[in-house]
């Protein structure tokens, strides 16, 4: 889905940059432009950083 309407960035792209190491809302903005205009999508991006950052995955891997 399109998360950032200002910069036309999809959840797929945002997820990719997070998995490639963008570990904060600011880093995501730098990597793909999402969140750089009105900022309304930032809350969603923050949730995605929590969900998809590799560190987070490592932490849960033990339980799988």
């Amino acid at each position: 889905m399109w998360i950032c309407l200002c910069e036309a960035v999809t959840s797929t792209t945002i997820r990719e940059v997070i998995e490639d190491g963008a570990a904060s809302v600011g880093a995501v903005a730098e990597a793909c432009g999402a969140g750089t205009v009105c900022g309304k999508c930032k809350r969603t991006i923050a949730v995605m950083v929590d969900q998809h950052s590799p560190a987070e995955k490592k932490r849960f891997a033990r339980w799988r």
Partner: protein
Amino acid sequence: MALKSSGTPVVKALNGLLTTELRAINQYFLDSKLAAHHGFEHLAEEFRKASFEEMNDAEELMDRILLLGGLPNLQRVDAFATGESITEQFQLAKELEEKAVGQLKAAIVTAEKAADPGTATMLREMLLEEERQVDWIEGQLGLITTLGDTAYLAQQIRS
């Protein structure tokens, strides 16, 4: 007369509902134009109708807020996302309508507590409409599951 947007709990609740309606207007309008862009004229029309219905809701809320001495807050619009596929658009629409239904139920309680049956009656009617919308969206999602994307979408080309 001086207007106060955040006056009473009822006005606050109505402004909260307005914020959601304003998002709904935009979300469905974009859904409609995206559907049209992809050639799904029938769906485009359905989403367009939904967008205009939400605008009617917004108008009713604004009129009521003014009548109660508040200032309708058109500045605050919820952030939203739109789907890359029709299925995703419906899933996001369902999320939106469920939020609106929850908010309406809470606002009805607020209006009743404030001894404002007029507002409560207006909101009850609105609730019935939103529940019908949820039902319609669930129906479409059900059809997509039953028929599969291709067969469902084939029915959405002509208006």
